[in-house]
């Protein structure tokens, strides 16, 4: 039982670490590139406007998608690694 508990703890720590990495990217691409850092990126031209506009109206959504599937893929690995997967 105690090994189960420690593996559950380690699994949770690994999960929280993965979430933190994903959410940092999530925030940097949307709030960062799309809004706050947009003036700094204004020199980079994308199709008649700047990179920040692209992130705000298209890029951030693509990043969100990649992040969710990356997370789902990594979690399937973690589930097996720590033997907490279903069936």
């Amino acid at each position, binding site marked *: 039982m105690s090994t189960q508990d420690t593996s*559950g703890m380690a*699994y*949770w720590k690994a*999960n*929280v670490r993965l*979430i933190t990495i*994903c*959410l940092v990217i*999530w925030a940097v691409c*949307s*709030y960062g590139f*799309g*809004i*706050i850092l*947009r003036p700094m990126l204004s020199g980079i031209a*994308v*199709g*008649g*406007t*700047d990179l920040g*506009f*692209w992130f*705000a*109206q*298209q890029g*951030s*959504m*693509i990043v*969100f*998608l990649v*992040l*969710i*599937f990356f*997370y*789902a893929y990594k*979690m*399937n690995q973690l*589930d097996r690694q720590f*033997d*907490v*997967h*279903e069936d």
Partner: protein
Amino acid sequence: MELQTLTFIVVGLTFALYMGIAVWARASSTGEFYAAGRGIHPVANGMATAADWMSAASFISMAGLIAFQGYDASLFLMGWTGGYVLLAMLLAPYLRKFGKFTVPEFIGDRYYSQTARIVAVICLIVASITYVIGQMKGIGVAFSRFLEVDFTTGLFIGMAIVFFYAVLGGMKGITYTQIAQYCVLIMAYTIPAIFISLQLTGNPIPQLGLFGSVADGTPLLTKLDQTVVDLGFSQYTAQKGGTLNMVLYTFSLMIGTAGLPHVIIRFFTVPKVKDARSSAGWALVFISILYTTAPAVAAMAMLNLANTVQPGPIAAADGALEYEARPQWFKNWEKTGLLTFEDKNGNGRVEYRKGDTNELKVDRDIMVLANPEIAKLPNWVIALVAAGGLAAALSTAAGLLLAIASSISHDLLKGIFKPDISEKGELLAARISMAGAIAVAGYLGLHPPGFAAQTVALAFGLAASSIFPALMMGIFNKRVNNTGAVVGMLTGITSTLVYIFWFKGWFFIPGTAMAANNASNWFLGISPEAFGAVGALLNFTAAILVSKVTAEPPEHIQHMVEDIRIPKGSGGATGH
């Protein structure tokens, strides 16, 4: 064929499809009624979630919002999609593992408190009802504009359709109809967009066309910037509002999305925890198809509109469109009142300008609704747009009604008033609650209260400031106890509601606002719509502080939290 006949045929066919599904997918247990028996494939659930999520506002109004606000409206695009990242990582898998039927049920169990459960039920009902009024209005409007059916009749037809499949099939019927509705609405949205993108930029993919070039080689967005600046407006791609407000508004929409119960309960329908994670990704795939098309539709429709009303140079006396020479779509939409022309200087020309000299009023909904006509597309495309708008409104309405009905029959009736109710009795109660919810929503659709227009502020404010923090702390912080959670939720709701009412009037009663609703009065420039993020922060802070000075949660609750954190051992629906 006559447009109206064609529209009747297309809309009639889609309705027949929804009814057919309703008969095929009847629910025979509470597990099927509340969670579709937990047998929905993650891709199918993603599609249903997309239809559930994308409302009449997403379909009809969003592109228009972007067209008139330009870059600033990006907050809707990011805000209404970014929440799915939070759902996939912070809520959906654990709530699926928990394996119950409603959002208040988790809050009640995790915080071992009926008070917490009741607070959650109230937030859920207020947020969902506000939201559903907008859908009812959308249904009525789609009928009256495209089919020239009276608004009330249109609303009754819409209610009858929802009644049929939601009461019979519950979540099971709703899921399969939402999948069909997604297909209808996405076709209706993308087909006109593809043609417009082809006409303007030569690129059939609107997402690429937006960043492509128009016929003379100028990039589309550069051209649009010049055009709107010539008319006296600020640049399309420039930021107009404050940065802090934009960040908080986006954040409120994101955590509000993740905290909206009708979205969360969709993830109770998949078989496994790992399906809940991937299903959130699939939902976002299907949502993004529309959400990345919308900014393209917005920019292209805006450019088309500006070029139509201002074919010549601004300075020239004959630069503006002659009213007598206006195109047919202009006349069609004048009849609906969405497009109005007032010849202020009496020169017989349509002068679309910023400020007092403007002679043309354009309702933002036109950007999607009139799009196929402006692009001179065949009548069947226009008919399809009508069916698409109805699909968007019906699918969201059904999801919301299910969230309301299940919190009444499962949380209030079974959870609090009559815990010994039988499975059959609860199923019947669920159907009756559903019928009741449809009746209330229909009544409010016909007699919209003053706050109907405040959907965004109210629904997202409540979800963001109360439900999202309570759920997240319930999973990620074992130390938060019953007192902390209740104090936190009440702090979040109260601060958010007071801030909204301060600028919009107490309970939205006109004339009771404490200060004019404009940026110079707002606290740090934060608009009422953006305050949910601050409310959430206050909720987190209050809950954690109060929990620190009160007793820690009992051991079985801490074990429960440990258990929902790991996927192992998730079963089918727990009947209980």
